[in-house]
């Protein structure tokens, strides 16, 4: 699906000289086509996560519109938008995001359970994904027993369970070694080859070679990098 942002901005309250707010993302236009693999780089605090969360429907832009396919994301009310996200967008949020009350397998199945779509097929898929990210042996373990990298890989498997047509990943290779980075990148690349739009925020130099396009975020402004 096409992911399109039209002049989106997001301000936050912060007391600085003169004003009491600032732009974390400023008037950004953006478009990504199906099958594209896009990476976003930028300094810490430049607004990458803010941007990605707005694309995911998790953070309402102060100005501008976000379209996923033909859907104006922030036009629909929360229930509808949530279900849309569940069905179409695989989100890998920044940081550690395992639910501690669920086992690794249950965490991976989580998106399919929210709207009662967890069936035998989904379980098979979850197990395959866990094998692909090398966590199959840990499927019945709780996330507090996982390492940071293992938790991250679990989150990636979880984002792929619904076979989403849009994948939004916020530093998915953050604390992975080279081998696992390559593994995760090829999973995401495969998803893109299968037609998904993949947008990924990263600091990882090794990861950049996978991208069709690389953007750079600086001070809330996004610009395409020419290699």
């Amino acid at each position: 699906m096409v992911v399109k942002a039209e002049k989106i901005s997001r301000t936050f309250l912060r007391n600085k000289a003169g004003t009491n707010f600032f732009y974390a993302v400023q008037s950004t236009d953006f478009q990504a086509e199906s099958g594209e693999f896009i990476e976003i780089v930028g300094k810490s605090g430049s607004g990458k996560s803010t941007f990605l969360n707005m694309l995911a429907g998790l953070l309402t832009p102060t100005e501008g519109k976000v379209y996923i396919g033909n859907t104006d994301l922030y036009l629909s009310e929360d229930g509808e938008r949530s279900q849309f996200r569940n069905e179409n967008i695989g989100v890998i949020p920044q940081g550690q995001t395992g639910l501690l009350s669920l086992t690794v397998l249950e965490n991976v199945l989580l998106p399919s359970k929210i709207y009662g779509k967890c069936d035998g097929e989904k379980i098979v898929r979850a197990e395959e994904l866990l094998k692909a990210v090398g966590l199959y042996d840990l499927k019945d373990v709780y996330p507090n027993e996982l390492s940071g990298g293992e938790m991250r890989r679990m989150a990636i498997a979880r984002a792929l369970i619904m076979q989403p047509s849009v994948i939004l990943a916020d530093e998915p290779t953050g604390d992975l070694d080279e081998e696992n980075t390559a593994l995760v990148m090829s999973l995401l690349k495969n998803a893109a080859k299968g037609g998904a739009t993949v947008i990924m925020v990263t600091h990882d130099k090794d990861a950049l070679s996978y991208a069709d396009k690389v953007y750079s975020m600086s001070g809330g402004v996004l610009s395409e990098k020419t290699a």
Partner: protein
Amino acid sequence: MNFFAELSLKNLKRKPLRTFALSALVALLSFVLFGGTILVTSLKNGLDSYSARLGADVVVVPYAARSEGQFEDVLLQGIPGNFYMSSSKIDKIANVEGVDKLSPQFFLASTSASCCSASVQIIGFDPDTDFSVLPWVNRKYGGSIGDGDIVVGSEISVTTSGKLKFYNVECNVVATLERTGTGLDTAVYANMNTIKQMAKNAKELGFTFLDGVNVDKSVSAVMIKVKSGYDAESVAAQINMAVTGIRSGSSTSYVSGVAGGLDNVSGIIGALSVMIWVLSVVILGVSLFAICNERGKEFAVLRAMGASKKSLYKLIIVEISILSAVGASVGVILSGAFILPFGAIIRRSLQMPYLVPEWWQLALFAVAAVVISVLTGVIASLFSVKKLSKNDAGLMLREDA
């Protein structure tokens, strides 16, 4: 099972201490609500049955008995009493305007000596004129109370032979009365012939409490029904003026002390319940609010995976409902276990009639206590739901797990 219900359970299980602490608070609430309701309704029931059992508009007793509260002692606490006045007073009372029916009673306390089966209050009444005892007897026994027949209160234990002996008079127990929660539950009723025979035997056996009492010409109390259109208070006042050596009072005057006591106890329990309720809402509200803040990231992850805000409210409310339903049930069970077996002790220490409601009423109260407690938990969780509804998930994602 619905996924969010399943997740609630798992969340509760993952934090056993937190779950325990919160449900203990709800348990305390339902303990107080249920226990308080049992106490107040038992006292209220007791009072109702007490005034109903009295069965008269006006009661006349000897002056001394009234001032020392002996009659109330007999009624309320089953403290045996012997007090007498001349039966010549009956005619004088009958002449007072407004008196419709009247019926004398003769009181005799039995002893624990070998001549008696038990030490109880025996009340002699006159089946020909009675209107206050027989209606209660007739609920259990349709026959007449002949010489040697007795009717016993609910707390008198009767042997299989169905016989009890008082001052060497062998009596047949023909009926056991319903519980009243008053001193009358330990009383024994006989007709005048029977009780006077006992009194005479007592004199012969050398008991001194009847010294100077002419058994045949004495009564202990006179129960009076006033004519319709007359006020019990004013008839009682008339009797006090017309007849000397006695004290007459409307039945409400015998009850009012108890009713006042009931008001006090109800007031205290009511205030306590409200206090605990407010405390519960505040403590639960603040704790849940803090817990939900701490769980911001967890909620945000669920949102990122496509859970709607509504389903998160559901998650919070289901969690608190499960937790408070368990807490409230434990509270109700503990409350019942603490209060129900000790009715006798409670009655004695409060010195008030105390009649525990029927089991179905208790069940109703228990359900109500649980429902109110669960609702309290849900109300307390609304602060958290409100907070959650205001924030975008994207903001909460930044919080540390």
